[in-house]
């Protein structure tokens, strides 16, 4: 139940008054609700859990973290 999965937003639209999106999970396309990430744009990455986006993935933070870890590795 904790497991949320990263996906890329392909399309954003509205359904029954809720912000929805078509999300690409490494080739598998599924619908998810984007109501909790109203600032989302197409091509953004997000974390989806039980059909809802919980937050957008911060590209810069991701890059910084990986750089930090690479430093440890070298």
């Amino acid at each position, binding site marked *: *139940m*904790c*497991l*949320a999965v*990263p996906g*890329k937003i392909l399309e954003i639209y509205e359904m*029954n*008054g*809720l912000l929805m999106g078509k999300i690409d*999970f*490494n080739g598998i396309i599924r619908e*998810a*609700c984007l*109501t*909790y*990430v*109203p600032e989302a744009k197409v091509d953004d*990455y997000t*974390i989806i*859990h*039980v*059909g*809802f986006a*919980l*937050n*957008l*993935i*911060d590209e810069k*933070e*991701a890059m*910084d*973290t*990986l750089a930090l*870890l*690479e430093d*440890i*590795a070298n």
Partner: protein
Amino acid sequence: MKHLDEYRDAHLVHAIADEISRTISKHWVIMEICGGQTHSIMKYGLDQLLPEKVELVHGPGCPVCVTSIEMIDKALAIASQPDVIFTSYGDMLRVPGSASDLFSTRATGKDVRVVYSSLDALKIAQNNPDKKVVFFAIGFETTAPANAMSVIQAKKLGIDNFSLLVSQVRVPPAMHIILGSPTNQVQGFLAAGHVCTVMGYWEYVPIAKIYKVPIVVTGFEPVDILQGILVAIRQLEKDTWQVENAYSRVVNISGNQRAQKIINQVFEEKDQKWRGIGSIPNSGWKLKSEYKGFDAEELFEVYEISPVESPLCISGQILQGIKKPNHCPAFAKQCTPEHPLGATMVSSEGTCVAYYRYGSSR
């Protein structure tokens, strides 16, 4: 895939494990609270990569496992009633109640359906106006925004044949119980990354301070988990107890404020019974009075059922990190994923099923 593969990189995994070995000088006990993290550790054999001085214990972060047996029995009673379509996240189907489970109930011809999202359950209600559709709204803070939104939508769209059977649990009170216990061995905590995506980590600051335990917000991929462990070990070696964020690509200290606003609109705190642990004050959420019309416990007459747990099952001790599955005499004998005695052998985040599937050499 981007934002996934990088965190499964074997080279990085080994490099961080090496750094942990270089950093650690004493034996430390670290608890990861989330079942998803337990599974990742077991699946990728991370505990075997770590130096022996790191002892990982598994916490009660499996909402399926901690849903009270009384609630399971209530679900079974409701699902058995006529004109009910009982919907649930898939994980709950095989969790044993006192006498049965949802899967067996479905096998007797009752309408029990697995849904991926609470909105799918709502759609079933829309498509079946002559039926009463109940959604088993379980979970930690991670599912609360999704579960809450289904009720808001139901109200907005005037769907009156939809209700929630709520069993929401909160992490911070459980941490108080574990860390506040006189027999507590846990010295460092890996906080559940996706719970923190919703709630932020401001709630953990007083916990770290009171119990002098470092708390590290941690993700779920192998690199994330090792990073969380490294950050915790560094603090333990320096004798500090801060809350640190090792999952900053999706977590910030305040969390998703929009989601928290919706949670507070729909739910209010209550004392909650955790299966195997007992009642923990303020550790659950229930629907607020404005939404009582969507509360399955109000809508359905369910008589007090005296719960019956398996006498062999030690799930409670496993959920508190006191025992490990291989300490259980029934493990892999009378108790298997096909014939589970307790929830920890069923849930995709259960500790027992993780041990059963991924490791016998622990």
